[in-house]
């Protein structure tokens, strides 16, 4: 289990409104980066925003950026974490298990069994090594739970599984300062 490769995928809105950059980070089971890839910024025009409406972000996040990025990665991950619910649907386009991850709902922490009702899984550390997180699988891919849960559990004490998203965001900011194509 210690040789896992873990993917983190997210779509970031840059400092320019309605401009998005898709990013994927692959790390080892300790969060040490192995590969990073991102798209140039995608700016939706008025027509596109109008036509796509609420589907704009999912379309950009999944079809335009997500699937091509994941397919272009050299270090194929064993599973991919995403930090937004709409990105979970990327699972329908790829074969790699996708897991939605986020900070646990503090109100629900006192009744962990509530999590199971939502289809979410709570991961809390006995010694509060890291803050509790909740994970969720795509409902159409129940097998992902069985196939990846052991791996997720084996790494959840190595590092804060939500933290890499902050690194990716910071990296996009730095890229944007260096090159306008990422703004």
């Amino acid at each position, binding site marked *: 289990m*210690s*040789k896992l490769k873990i993917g983190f995928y997210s779509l970031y809105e840059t400092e320019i409104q309605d401009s998005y950059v*898709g990013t*994927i*980070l692959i790390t*080892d089971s*300790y*969060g*040490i*980066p*192995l*590969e*990073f*890839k*991102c*798209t*140039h*910024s*995608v700016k*939706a*025009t*008025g*027509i*596109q925003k*109008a*036509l*796509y*409406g*609420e*589907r704009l972000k999912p*379309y*950009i996040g999944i*079809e*335009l*950026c997500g699937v*091509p*990025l994941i397919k*272009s990665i*050299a*270090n194929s991950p064993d599973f991919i974490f995403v930090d937004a619910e709409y990105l979970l649907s990327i699972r329908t386009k790829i074969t790699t298990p996708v897991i939605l991850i986020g900070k646990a709902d503090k109100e629900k922490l006192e009744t962990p069994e509530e999590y199971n009702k939502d289809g979410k899984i709570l991961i809390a550390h006995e010694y509060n090594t890291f803050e509790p997180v909740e994970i969720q699988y795509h409902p159409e891919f129940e097998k992902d739970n069985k196939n990846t849960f052991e791996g997720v559990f084996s790494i959840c004490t*190595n*590092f804060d599984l939500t*933290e890499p998203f902050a*690194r*990716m965001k*910071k*990296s996009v*900011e*730095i*890229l944007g*300062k*260096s*090159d306008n*194509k990422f703004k």
Partner: protein
Amino acid sequence: MSSNKLSFFQRTKLNVAKSVAPVKEKSSSSLNQIDFYLPPPSYRSIKEIFFADANISQNYCYSPDSISISNLPLLEEVIIGENKLLNIGFDSIIIHDLDDIQELINLYPAIENFVVKFRKPFMRGKIYSREQPKEIVRKPRKIKEINPEQEKEEEVLIESEEDFDKPVIKQQYKDKNKFDTFDVFDLIFPALQPPLGKNFDNPIVFPRPLLAFQPEGIEFLLDNPAALLGDEMGLGKTIQAIVALKVLFSTGKITTCCVVCPKALLTNWYNELCRWAPELKALRLEGGPEYRRVLWSAGAHIYLCVYESLQKDLEKTIEIKNLKVDKDGHHFKCLVEECKGEIDIPFSRHYTEVECPHCLNRFFYPYKDDRARTHFDVLILDEIQKTKNPKTKMTKATRVVYADYKWALSGTPMENKLKDLVTVCETLEAEMFIDMNKTNAQEVIARYKSKFIRRKKDDVLKDLAPIQSKYEWLELSKSQRKKYDDAEAEGTDDLENQGEKVTVTHIFALITKLKLLCNLDPETLESSKLDYLKEKLEELTSQGDKALVFSQFPKKTIEPLLPLLKEFSPLYYHGGLNLGQRETLVRKFQDPANVENKIMFLSLKAGNSGITLTRANYVFHFDMWWNPSISSQAAARAHRIGQNKIVFETMLLAEDTIERRIFDILETKKSLFNVVVDDLSEEINLDKLMSEEEIFGLFGLKKRRNVVALTDENIKKDFHTFDETEFEKFVSDLFTQMGYHLNHHKKSYDGGVYMYAKRIRPSGIDEVIIQSMRVEQSNMIVKEDVVVKLGTLLYSNKKIAKALIVTNGIFDAEATIFAEKNKIELIGGTQLQEFIQKNYSK
């Protein structure tokens, strides 16, 4: 355009639709034409209306595959399936609702599919590693710790510098790849690393935990763009500076840094950066001027250079009179005599051709001979006391470079030297003492106090282990490198030419010769180890500390070094001194009132157990000991009862030499030290620690051929015709044939050789010691004391199941009785032939 098309546009809210010229087939109109026809304000309002009034429902885009309108900026074509429908005659279709689409389809019945397209974005990135980092398992090491209450030394298990079972961030940028492309994805690599931890305590990121006082120093650097870190030597100023750099790089606050240091410390900086910040690319600015020019222009996070190189690489710029440097760039008066107008050159224009705004004279700035960069995000000046004279070119060079953060590191106390202090501070911040009296010590100190932090070892004593050890890898000087390479090549050729006659003794002789060259060049007396030592001695002696320097080579290393370090008035403790002289020397060194003699040189033979030199708390090993017990013993001259300071022990080793090769092999065999090496002989014990293959392999040679083959003929021979080595080889081969794997050999100092061997059997693993003892005549007796000594060895190692002595002599009765009682098998005399007959197979 047909009336139907006009009708289509008329349904829009845009009056502009009417003003669009009727589009004929095979013609098109553009937005410019609209501009032409309409006054601009109308156009602007059109644009607003155009988008604001779009009445699109969520379901409009009922499937991304079913609507096709061109991308940007305005519609120029309609795509039908795979085919373009050109020149449909209008540049924009204002879509308000589904009816509009339907209208379009009615007008153009050939249209089957509409697809709203986005341009596919470019993807860029970098692969940082294809392999998983290896997990390294290191065992804690034992040291002797002084227990003042019990007043005796006891062995204590302490944590080694490396943690047990820890993941490792691999060094990303190797020296051999220094000219590889360095792009934005290298710039963000530090930001992609795991976080450093709240108190810089993430074990994944750091090779060892920081000491408790070090985070304070790091925070101090981060909070002060101009800062002087003045911790005493040995408290980790370099590490604190590196961690502060890691923070700034990882948060994206900086992208470049320059570290300027004395020559002797360049390799140390590079090694520490590789260890503490493997995610950063560090370039060493070494070599000739043009090579440095290439290096300065290569991409990197950190540029490492020495003061002398920086001075040379900014030589012309330094000479510009009244040059002012600030965040906006360089400011000076035009060099044209008739002009003298003020010129301001921002950093973005450096290394381009610029023009004086007054006389229009064009020139390249900085001058073409100057190669160094003039602007960094961070500038670190190590041992800044070297620039205490404001008039020297070296000091001026450090002031030509601008950096948002300027940090100085120095363990040398400067509070008592006001002028030096002022100069150093003004290098960090030019206007620190502006509008005040710089000769007033109190005012000066009050001004610079907030930018200075200094911790003494005594202050942080409780945070440190009793002894701090480290290896310092140094590059050979130019002349040393040449001599070393020539000697190694010549020596290796000589060994190869000797063929089968080569023994490990020959190889040891070559190793000794090369080790001497690693210490210094005997002709020029150049020595990178000496340069490093001098730097450190200057610092530690200025703090009032003293040092011991050990070497294996009194005549060829210590004696040539003595005059080169005369400013420290070194004492020399050697075997040629009588007892009285030794005692006098020790008393002199230990005398608290003696501030003149700051260092003592010793060879271990002479400086062995029994002498106390606790006046020193810095120990340097000028050459490598294969046996770690020796370095412990040496350090114990200072680290013993009576020592009330932390002892800092440094091993000086030469990179890319025989010292490195042997070190790397021995590192993998640390566990052997406890089992095998139990004596403190100064002689090289490599043959006990490395196999013959490994020793020969140090110079790319193959193990020598069998001296005596285990053959039908040889087994019938009289063993007295064999010499010691041949007999040992014969016995060794015999046991190998019996299925034993012989691990290593060790002299028994009673004329024999111990061989440690293992054999895997169905019942388990047999571990045995075999003593091979060849005697001159077959009736020579091997006495009880030999057997007793072997018995002692047997019982000191619980893994060993039994011992055997194989000799061509005979055993006395006492020896036989002792052996029977103690699991020792005796094979000698006539038994030897029987043993061979029984176990030898063709």
